[in-house]
């Protein structure tokens, strides 16, 4: 089976859907042995030092892979242990999925209680006045007297 593997370097988090890939090198060959497509071990014969590569794409399988381990079998022969990156592989399909967001950096409801927020033991106390002071009347008393109807005007 004609076989092309493209090796990449990436610094992206493993749990990122769309990873930034750099330093691509494409290697062609033939797949001679049985192979698990989600976690294959593949022998690569190349004069290029691939020890610093950590990601790859196998067009035949239509999948992106993390390089879990690289073994130098002998001069120019490498064995790489791969694991399928399902997020990158199905990136386009995942983005069409509708989900119920539990937590998100971009879309959230700030009024929902968030148990992951932490607070200090002390608190912030503020006072605000109504801008009014009850001042004792300096020059007046309120006098209430018994009265009669006729002068109650």
């Amino acid at each position, binding site marked *: 089976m004609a076989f092309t593997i493209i090796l990449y370097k990436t610094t992206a988090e493993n*749990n*990122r*859907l*769309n990873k930034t890939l750099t330093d691509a090198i494409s290697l062609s060959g033939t797949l001679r042995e049985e192979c698990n497509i*989600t976690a294959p071990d593949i022998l690569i014969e190349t004069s290029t030092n691939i020890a610093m590569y950590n990601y790859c794409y196998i067009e035949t399988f239509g999948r992106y892979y993390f390089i879990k381990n690289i073994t130098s079998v002998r001069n120019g022969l490498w064995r790489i242990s791969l694991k399928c990156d*399902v*997020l990158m*592989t*199905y990136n386009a*399909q*995942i983005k*069409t*999925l*509708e*989900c*119920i*967001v*539990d*937590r*998100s*950096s*971009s*879309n*959230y*409801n*700030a*009024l*929902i*209680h*968030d148990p*992951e*927020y*932490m*607070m*200090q033991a002390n*608190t*912030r106390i*503020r*006072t*605000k*006045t*109504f801008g009014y*002071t*009850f001042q*004792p*009347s*300096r*020059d*007046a*008393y*309120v*006098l*209430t*007297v*018994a*009265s*009669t*109807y006729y*002068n*109650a005007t």
Partner: protein
Amino acid sequence: MSKGLFLLSEDGSQVRWFFFSTTTKTTKVDDWWNSSTPNENYDNYASPNSGNESLLENYNSLKFGTSITSLFNVPKKDDETVTFNVLWQNTTSVPIRYIKVTIDHTSGNDYYKCSVELLDENKTTITGTMYAYLFCRDVTPQYMLGPSREYIYTSFTLFIAPLTDDISDSFMFGFLRGHKLGTDNETQFYDYTMYRNGAGKKSTSWFYNYTGAAYPLSWYLGMLKDTPSYPSGGVEPTDVFGGDENNFDTTSDDISVPSPITGAIDNGLVKTYLISPTQLNIMMNHLTDFNNTSLKDFLDNIAMLYNNPIDAIISIKKFCIDFSEVPIGSAQNVFLLTYDTQATANPITAQYGRIDVGSIDIAEFFGGFLDYPPYTRCSIYLPFIGEKELNVQEIMGSTIHLYYMVDFLTGNCVAHLNVEKSAGETNLNSDLYQWEGNMACDVPLTGTDFHEMAGNALGNVFSGISNAMTGNIGGYFTNLGSSFGAANTGKVMSGAISGSSALMGVRVPYIKIENPIQTVPDNFQDLRGLAGNINHVIGDLSGFLRCREVDINNITATDDEKAELYALLTGGVYV
């Protein structure tokens, strides 16, 4: 703090501006327009200012008002930035000739307060219906900021445009207040949704004929949303909770307090006066003048009712209010029953009076759940009553108005707290709280131990209040005691010395708000996200995402891969 005032021509080609450093600036519109240096490239003002801008925090409490003297309170802090603009339209026939702008920092509450007044040719404030519109396009609500609140980006400042051909008629107006870029110099939030916290829903009565440059007003209007704004899909489902009979009626009936219609004063059996210490002394001296034949006749006549004429005095009280707010009649002689005491005083025409204490806007501090119970607590201190707990759910985002109803006959008072709130699911304008107290301090009148009671009352309660008062009244009481003390048995007409403690305590009503202090790492929102519970298509999201539930059956992957995908999406991924 530098302040900027801008005016933009209708076609958007010219702009006038000036900066001022004083607290208040009044400028004539025409002069301003004609003499200022035109500047066609107003985009220059997209650049950050040079260092002396005052930076603000907490964008929750920009107050919107429909009055032309609207106040915008912006809490001050040294870390953030805000630009806020005001649009208005003069619907009166009076041309606007001057603009008076005041931006002041009040050290008491650490707020900036901004007021705008439109003045006529005589520099008289134009009153009438004005539509004011506040937007703050460069402000990101605090809860949308990164945990370290570094993601502020100000792209443009503000634009002011005449709304009609007459430049003095109406126009947009703005203040320029500094800029700050995100730490990575990129806009982090494209949703510049502005919130009118505590002030209700956005206006629908605004109209506008702006045809100039920059953005059409609709663009700004589109940014303004009600408070708080639920993200898409986050609203309460109408078909799940509450059963089939739900109508989700969010309206409220206003609850107000009717004024007391009649009181004891109205029936004429008692009469209440506002009397000065001097007149009080005249009255009491007259009542002790036993050479006065009319007094003797009076005493003979009232002997069937009272032991002495003092008995006809029901109470003398000292109140802790400004009597300029109390309805009183013109001065007249004070009568005890039918006896003219020769003293003059102003009758208080209503037994009950209302003392308006003022209003406070209760704005969200965080703009999120931390502003509500159990995290935030609020209490109110009421002179003569004490400290009372308030329900934060009821008052957050509202304008609370405090007033006292006072009974001048007894000194009893009831403090009412009106809550006006139109935010989210709540529409209130009601007196939700009332508390009872007594704000009067009785002056004791008695025949027994009179010297002691009068001395205590005057010495402890009124000392320092009024030298003139203590001199006159104290002198009188001494004489009164000498004259009547031996002749009368102990009888208290108006006894208890109530309210004196309140007189010696804090007499400023205030609220106390206790907020938590959150401790959030700088990159918390990026790495962990914030709580959602929203339906969304994953591709429309960005940054960290943790799904509560997701259907992955439409993906053409192996079962193991689907299981892994599900675990990843519900465990947290970066989109």
